[in-house]
């Protein structure tokens, strides 16, 4: 996931929107495109999308807040997705999630204050045979137990510290 996480107003989002005609029906593809490029949708991006397609900002916002597809806040450096699909849940992903919540001090859907970790509940991460499973920055971890999770989180913490130096 290569993305520049920026709130900088000077960034020109219109480059990403080129190729989309001025037609409201391209709103959904445009939002996906922006999220793909920047990792989340900032207020500026929503405004730019509205201007580009010629629709009211309110309409853009109402679609962007529907369901769970779009994020309106930047992600942390390390994204943890715990699968909460039926298969994983029945095999104990709830416990995994509560351990992570306690360990990181955040609830599912939030990012830690220092921007190191984002904890997400994913609807299904396609690893039913490895339930309960989670994905950290795209890497899959399966057949988890509470202790494994603590170890994995430690590893990523150390990794971030060493890369910061």
């Amino acid at each position: 996931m290569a993305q520049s996480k920026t709130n900088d107003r000077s960034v020109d989002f219109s480059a990403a929107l080129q190729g989309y005609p001025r037609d409201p029906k391209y709103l959904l593809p445009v939002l996906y495109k922006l999220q793909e490029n920047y990792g989340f949708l900032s207020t500026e991006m929503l405004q730019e999308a509205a201007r580009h397609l010629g629709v009211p900002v309110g309409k853009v916002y109402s679609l962007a807040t529907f369901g769970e597809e779009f994020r309106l806040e930047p992600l942390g450096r390390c994204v943890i997705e715990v699968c909460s699909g039926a298969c994983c849940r029945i095999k104990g992903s709830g416990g995994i999630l509560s351990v992570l919540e306690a360990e990181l001090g955040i609830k599912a859907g939030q990012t830690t204050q220092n921007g190191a970790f984002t904890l997400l509940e994913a609807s299904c991460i396609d690893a039913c045979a490895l339930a309960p499973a989670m994905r950290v920055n795209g890497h899959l971890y399966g057949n988890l137990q509470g202790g494994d999770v603590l170890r994995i989180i430690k590893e990523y913490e150390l990794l971030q510290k060493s890369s910061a130096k």
Partner: protein
Amino acid sequence: MVWKESLQEAACTHSQSDPCPVVLDCLRSAEPLCELRHNGKTPWQAAEENQVVVRIGLGSCGIAAGAKKTYNYFKSQLAKSGELKDRVVLKKTGCLGLCSHEVVVSVEKSDRVVFFKNVNIERASEILELYIQGDSLPEDGILGIVRKDQEDGQKIGSLQAYLNSRVLLQNAGLIDPSSFDEYLASGGMAAFAGALKMQRRGEEGRMLSAILAAMSKSGDFCIEKERLVEFKERSGEKTVVLRALEQDTSSFTVRTILESDPYSAVEGLMVICVLLGASRGLVFLDPKFKNARVLLEDAVCQLQEAGLLGEEVLGSGFSLRIEVFPGLESAVCAEDGAVFAAVLGDRPKPGSSGKAQGGSLTCHLEDAVYAVRLGALWPGWSEHPFKGEIPETQVVSLLGRVENAGCIEVPLGTSLREIVYDYGGGVENRKVLKALQIGGASGGFLPARLIDTPLDQGLLQTLGIKRFGSILVLDQDCCIVDQTYYSLKEMSGHSCGLCIPCREGLFRLVEMLGSIKRAGQGPENLKRFQILSQLEKLAETIRDTSRCSHGSSAVTPLLTGLTYFKDEFRAHIFEERCPANQCKGLLKFKIDAELCTGCSICRERCPEDAIIGQSKFSHFIIEDRCTSCGICHEVCPFGAVSFS
């Protein structure tokens, strides 16, 4: 590539006894209608003797289980050895649907195809050395053996019999999902050929009966006959939206079909477009299906190159465009209006009549693929498409506490017992079956004693659901209240918020169930006793007054749960006891002093500071402070924290 070679105008002379080898060549010739009839059986195609074809399933599930590693291992080993390189062909396939057996590798050699399961690198080297280079089969790790020459008469329950019985999934895991040539070789594009010929001849009546036959697959609710007829007669630009979304939240049927056989999905949409005279087809895709999206977009490109899509399809004067459109995943998109709204860039609302509704129609993926299978058996969709000859099947995702989870296709009317015990291999760890939840988060519970119920229309009605999607197996260690709570929470989270029963009612139900999942204190206890009657009353109100099926179906688990497992609800409410020991809020946690080593992992993580003890000495839980969150139990590396 075969299909690019010629644009011959010669009349087709094929008959049923001498079927058309390459559909496209015949399609390009104007008349008469090619009597193509494909037997729908797998085209094993190791051409020459001595050649070996190794196929590795690279669906999402396979990749998660490490299929890429296995694939790369085979690739590097083949590259190393010149002798192997000439003799062995390595291919990628989609997913066979048997998740628990991933990574699945099939080896086609001489007269048989051997399917190996759980192939890691160790197994892979064994297969390579023993079977491919030598000629002896490894002792274990074999999923099944398919003999190429033998088509019938094999024993029931074998892999071969299962593979032959599949209709919608017929190509899944057997052909390369990204190869148009392999799709053609497996009999693809025959249905489209038939539909296009009817269109060329202007046989409106036959087209109508064909589409009705294709769309009336049992269990269908998307399109009513009148709407279909009205849509067909409508003039002007028309769009057919293929709904490539899962039936329910825990199913993965659609993903399996799309990843294993994307061409069938696209052809299905093309067939429906042609039969209904629509010039635009839209695949409304779940945005989660990243692998499927690549495959579908690639398939559309290949079809365009072949001249089967675009302006003037094969010179017929009929133009057809197919677009892949990542839509929204939300369960509200089970409603037509919501899908059209999303396509137009509006916030989806159930029941809203989007502007496009007049010129648009939605159909479900399974119906589209069914249309392809039907059309392939009936060249040119004979006068009265007779459905009886294609067995009616149902694709279901089997998951939960079952030995072999996966996406399987079973004949309609198969009993649930057969599905769980024969196809699924029984309950995990030989535990006792408690219930099945059929239809995901909005599906109903069926107790174990009703397991001989057949999977058919009657079952749908009993449970009050519209389609099968997934079957979740619950054993004795699963709590129905807990399962209901999470199902409702999921549905409540997906509520669009437009109508009050669904938005507020589901929220209240979740709240109430949450409160009986933990021990009550003081005045809360009095309220607790009313909950049983309140739950039922509120659930019925939501069912009857919700604006769309999202709300009315969301309470199904609760209503069926109350019907069949009322005792369990009672135990939670009146005795503050969870019979399955699943609801942590009702459990008492204890540290076993013998097992505890005093590593203090639990003490540091207890959010309530309820654990005391010195390092390297046994720890204790202070009962008064403990909120029964269960984190200590999860993190203890020695299994010293027990509950009762």
